[in-house]
């Protein structure tokens, strides 16, 4: 997604190494995605659904 848009930045964060981040974002299962500190996406979704959820609040269709 970061390759397809100059506005997208992606971090893959290893949750067990950084318990402070896991706590801050209440990560109890993985994968869990946090978008702009507010939107949560739980689990691995099909690409269309994942992209929609990630962009829903910044670029409504």
């Amino acid at each position: 997604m970061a390759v397809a848009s100059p506005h997208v930045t992606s971090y893959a964060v290893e949750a067990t190494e950084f318990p402070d981040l896991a706590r801050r974002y209440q990560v109890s299962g993985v994968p869990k995605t946090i978008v702009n500190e507010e939107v949560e996406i739980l689990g691995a979704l099909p690409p269309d659904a994942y992209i929609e959820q990630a962009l829903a609040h910044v670029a409504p269709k």
Partner: protein
Amino acid sequence: MGLLSPADQQKLRETFAEMTRPVRALFFTQTLGCETCGLTRQILDELPPLTDKLTIEELNVVLDKEQARQYGIDRAPAIALAYERGDAPGALEDSRIRFVGAPSGYEFISLVQAIALVGGRPSALSAEQRARLAAVDKPVVMQVFTTPT
């Protein structure tokens, strides 16, 4: 001793063969209190022998403050992927793809795929998905939490 079997090395060579431009992995380390920096360095060192399109640059998250800020890195180990623009020798363009924590287990596969993608391998996204992303005009910062297994 190497971490990868000859068969794994061969698979990675094939993946990296699709790259069309040089990628630089900016590896942010820190001197104290970084338990997995050594492991991360070991993992990263496995890759450049498999392709002439990948180099590793080690930086210090404390001492190389400017780069750390530029790439949005505030802890170690972390890897930021950049690629050479091609219009000026050595000029780097941020891919905005970062890995925080040691890229072991499944994250290693993700790192390899990300390097190939940043290196110009065609995206797996559909034309519609790419168009949807191209229309984004506000910052989107995604943090994907994973575990090593």
